[in-house]
């Protein structure tokens, strides 16, 4: 289980990684844009801090925090965002599909709610295979209105699958407010399937860590899934296109109120100042190296655009003959 210093290192790394990535979107190094996780770092740090490296996670379109917290290399992660051959997915996945199977990351997923059943299946098979690995699926408040997620809750509960359902309730499904999208309560959905559900402060890494650790212990002991609703706030845009499109869905006052509690500051205050300064400097050096590595990395060869499409290397016909 992660200690206070490790939690600080994690939230600070995610924050600075994202701030630099946003700048790289603006400068054109990262194509397509990203979904910033800024403000929500406590959840990734707290949940992944309760996991082993051989546990499994599935993530979302807003997945950088989960992927970094689970232990993917930030250098190869940044190269992936920039679509380089040296990236985690060899430039084939980008921000919304980043995966690192070696540390249990079964991929970010760009269809809201889609990954919950995948994590449930992975958890079910681990239990069947006699392993004590758990699986975690992260999703936002918008996903609780997706049918497939509700089907996954039912199956996970029926089978006592060792899976954690982590709902990051940041108040908005893109621009739609949670109270306008969601009848009943979020935890009520899990309770309806007999899954223990709890709402926790998703701005405090240590609160999240404690709740996630208890859930992991339950899952490893064979007592089945747990659902955590983590209340949080997205400080930045839904996606970097907001910088251009400027959709109006929350007021400046609301944003100011939502950002008063900052997970990086909350955790930073728990770390002695000299240690904090040292960690901050290490992270900047690491991210400097990541930016250099990305800049020096080649784009994939267009001849290999459909490499990896099939596990056996099957080649379909080209688009022109």
């Amino acid at each position, binding site marked *: 289980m992660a200690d206070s210093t490790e939690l600080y290192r994690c939230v600070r790394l995610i924050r600075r990684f994202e701030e630099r990535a946003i700048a790289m979107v603006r400068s054109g190094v990262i194509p397509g844009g990203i979904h910033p996780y800024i403000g929500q770092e406590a959840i990734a740090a707290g949940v992944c801090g309760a996991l082993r490296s051989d546990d*499994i996670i*599935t993530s979302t379109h807003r997945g950088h925090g989960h992927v970094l917290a689970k232990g993917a290399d930030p250098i190869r992660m940044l190269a992936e965002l920039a679509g380089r051959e040296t*990236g*985690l*997915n*060899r*430039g*084939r*996945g980008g921000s919304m*599909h980043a*995966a*690192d*199977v070696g540390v249990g990351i*079964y*991929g970010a*997923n760009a*269809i809201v709610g*889609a990954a919950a*059943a*995948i*994590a*449930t*299946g*992975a*958890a*079910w*098979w*681990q239990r*069947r*295979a006699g392993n004590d690995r758990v*699986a975690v699926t992260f999703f936002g408040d918008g996903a609780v209105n997706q*049918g*497939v997620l509700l*089907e*996954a809750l*039912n*199956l996970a509960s*029926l089978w006592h699958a060792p899976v954690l359902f982590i709902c990051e309730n940041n108040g908005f499904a893109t621009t739609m407010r949670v109270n306008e999208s969601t009848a009943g309560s979020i935890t009520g959905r899990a309770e309806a399937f007999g899954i223990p559900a709890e709402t926790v402060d998703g701005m405090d890494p240590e609160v999240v860590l404690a709740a996630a650790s208890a859930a992991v212990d339950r899952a490893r002991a064979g007592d089945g899934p747990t659902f955590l609703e983590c209340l949080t706030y997205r400080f930045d845009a839904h996606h970097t296109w907001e910088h251009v499109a400027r959709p109006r869905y929350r007021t400046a006052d609301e944003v100011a109120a939502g950002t008063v509690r900052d997970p990086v500051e909350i955790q930073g205050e728990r770390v002695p100042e000299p240690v904090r300064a040292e960690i901050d400097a290490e992270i900047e050096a690491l991210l400097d190296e990541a930016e250099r590595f990305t800049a020096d990395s080649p784009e994939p060869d267009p001849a290999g655009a*459909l*490499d*990896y*499409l*099939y*596990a*056996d290397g*099957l080649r*379909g*016909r080209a688009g022109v*003959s």
Partner: protein
Amino acid sequence: MPNMSFLRGLNRALGDEMERDPAVCVFGEDIGVAVSNVTIGLLKRFGPERVVDMPISEQGFTSVATGAAMAGARPVIEFQIPSLLYLVFEQIANQAHKFSLMTGGQLKVPVTYLLPSSGSRTGWAGQHSDHPYSLFAHVGIKTVVPATPTDAYGLMITAIRDDDPVIVFAPAGAVAQREDVDYDTLGPVPLGVGRLHRQGTDVTVVAVGHLVHDAIAVADELADTISVEVFDPRSLYPFDWDGLAASLERTGRLVVIDDSNRTCGIGGEILATAAEEMRLTAPPKRVTRPDGAVLPFARSLDLAVQPSRAQLRTAIEAVVKN
């Protein structure tokens, strides 16, 4: 020599692979009692941990299979109704199929999707009678449509052993087929290798699934006047283009019979490829369901929409006149 039915071929393939590889498991609705006959005996042999009866949650359990496959399982999902594939199109086309490329080859998803009675089962009406193999070939899912019991066995074995998602359509019109087989010689049938059911010199008929048997019957009827070669691609993706080209070298004329809708159906793809790349001495023809067809309930209407032997015969005669 034992007489094996088509469904028994699928059943035997499942049992053999489950015996051989403990990672193979079966998911589906009502498979414990073997409502389709494909899973007969498997629950007793392998237990409920490997023959997993599912609630009515197709989207959920289809992606559960994806996650289990990523973690090392080799699930086979049985869908009782082909139209359920529309419900799980996101889970197959947008999830299972895409992970290998999107992760740069880190993940593989060896799931087999089995449709044990696809297409018209006369009287099953609009939402139970589609035959959507063209849709999956279009997406790039490995898609097989066996016509005979031995091919049902051999293609099912190959599908289960394949490291990618594979969809197996067992045509309703073929499941009544029976064949004398020597169990010792049954073996896997590779994807992308077609089968010549009958050799001929005047025209090649490419027939998909159960329509292979109609094509053979029509070829017999015409035997005195027209020499018809019957080519069964067996898998639609990958497709045996070399086998088709070799047949057209002999005949130069082509008719395709395909039980899917006309626009963007596999029949159109076969004609287009032959026209672009192969030897054709006369304009080709295809016999398919009509554009956008929904199978009507009444028997006469259902049959009116399906490709028929009469239509095939007319098409062959027209192509050969040119």
